[in-house]
């Protein structure tokens, strides 16, 4: 038994945090929403939102997925009033999940000061309901764990990433759903990845997702293998990709998700973050937090973030565990790191030992221990325009559920 105790939501899902989210539905409502969060002065009241005024099905799907995330205990929506975001559909999805939700429309609520005043009262009401959430025993098999890398360097692929892979293998063996992504960084290992798929059909979908990423990044003017990679000891494209890919560990791949899709079983999933169709809206993920938001939209209770150069970010809604790949970076930024994987470079630990440390820390954080970025108040959140087709039937792990 894991010894975990989750927040049991009305829809049956279990969270490891009990967050009240204040969501702006267009940039014009951002200041009001942020002021409400700041005034609440509560580590479990978080700011999320979407800045655009034009409608976008992807943004609605992601906001619905996050508004009904297991770590969410209640949501306050802040609308300016004239933006295109479908606040009724978002409100209805959150309400249907059994979570308390309130809506304030600035144009109808008396402007900034009055909406901030009403918003503070709404947050207090939502908190009071969220605080009544029953607790229930939670097994490791009920966890969804994401992983990304950011601020990578030559050490990422030989310390932090394979150590996360070992932790992923243990988590997956315990029944957790583990999600990796960055198809743009997987060019060259698509056949290796396809060989790990539980069905040939899924293998073909995995290869197609990497081909799509390669085509997309080519249009965006991105190559992948840079001269600096060779100086750092990397010889081939597939070797470089394997460094990022090693975060996924060695378990079979059971399915593919797109942002907002939920894993239907435990096991290892690829999150396909590259938009479908013609290249629109620019880069697939403009920064690391855009990827973290998509992992959270897929139900990630927490995210394992590997970094060599040293990122300092956390996230709204779901905790981020930062695994530092480079011992020099760790010495400079130890106050921002949860795990010192760079010690492997200095003979002060092995990949297996660091993998075990990450696994233990996942359970501790799922049990309520605050990560370093949580304690520092990091609550980054970014969501931009994208377009996706639904996943095909071969992407779901039917053999596992049946």
């Amino acid at each position, binding site marked *: 038994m894991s010894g975990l105790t989750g927040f049991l939501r009305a829809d049956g899902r279990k969270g490891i945090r009990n967050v009240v989210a204040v969501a702006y539905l267009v940039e014009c409502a951002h200041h009001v929403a942020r002021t409400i969060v700041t005034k609440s002065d509560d580590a479990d009241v978080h700011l999320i939102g979407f800045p655009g005024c034009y409608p976008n099905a992807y943004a609605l799907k992601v906001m619905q997925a996050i508004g009904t995330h297991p770590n969410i205990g209640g949501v306050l929506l802040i609308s300016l009033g004239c933006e295109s975001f479908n606040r009724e559909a978002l409100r209805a999805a959150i309400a249907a999940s059994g979570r308390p939700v309130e809506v304030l429309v600035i144009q109808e609520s008396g402007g900034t000061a009055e909406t901030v005043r009403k918003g503070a009262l709404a947050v207090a009401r939502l908190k009071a309901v969220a605080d009544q959430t029953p607790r229930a025993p939670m097994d490791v098999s009920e966890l969804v764990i994401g992983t990304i890398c950011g601020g990578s360097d030559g050490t990422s692929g030989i310390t932090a990433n394979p150590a996360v892979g070992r932790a992923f293998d243990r988590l997956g063996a315990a029944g957790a759903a583990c999600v990796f992504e960055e198809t743009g960084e997987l060019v060259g290992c698509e056949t290796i990845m396809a060989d790990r798929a539980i069905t040939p059909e899924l293998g073909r979908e995995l290869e197609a997702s990497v081909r799509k990423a390669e085509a997309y990044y080519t249009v965006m003017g991105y*190559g992948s293998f*840079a001269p600096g990679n060779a100086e750092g000891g990397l010889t*081939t*494209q597939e070797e470089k990709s394997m460094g990022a890919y090693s975060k996924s560990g060695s378990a079979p791949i059971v399915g593919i998700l797109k942002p907002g899709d939920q894993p239907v079983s435990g096991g290892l999933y690829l999150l396909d973050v590259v938009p479908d169709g013609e290249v629109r809206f620019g880069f697939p993920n403009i920064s690391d937090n855009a990827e973290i938001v998509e992992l959270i939209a897929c139900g990630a209770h927490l995210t394992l973030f590997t970094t060599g150069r040293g990122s300092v970010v956390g996230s709204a809604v779901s905790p981020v565990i930062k695994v530092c790949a480079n011992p020099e970076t760790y010495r400079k930024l130890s106050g921002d790191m949860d795990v010192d994987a760079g010690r492997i470079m200095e003979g002060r630990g092995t990949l297996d030992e660091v993998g075990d440390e990450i696994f233990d820390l996942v359970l501790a954080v799922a049990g309520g221990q605050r990560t370093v970025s949580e304690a520092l108040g990091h609550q980054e959140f970014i969501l931009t325009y994208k377009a996706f087709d639904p996943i095909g039937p071969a992407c779901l792990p039917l053999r596992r559920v049946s």
Partner: protein
Amino acid sequence: MKPILLHPDDNVLVLAQAIHAGQTIEIDGAALAAPHDVAVGHKIARHALSVGDKVLKYGAPIGSMTAPAAPGGHVHMHNMKSDYIASHTRQATGQTTGEPS
């Protein structure tokens, strides 16, 4: 100096520190004198490698040998190539990237 073995199937090891010619390195529990200088983060052969051998790192093929390598010998551009896309092809296009994310 004990290089990193990323996967039990691998035939290359990754250097956690730079090594110098003659320095004692440990491969699978056996001591060996490094045949030449190799920089940190680079690969050395776990055992003798021949032309055409698949290079295995992370338990997966990352290319093939184009020249032999002795145990402990440097494995890089001079004696291996991609089986996927020649690394220099992308550099020659003038496309460069920032940091891998």
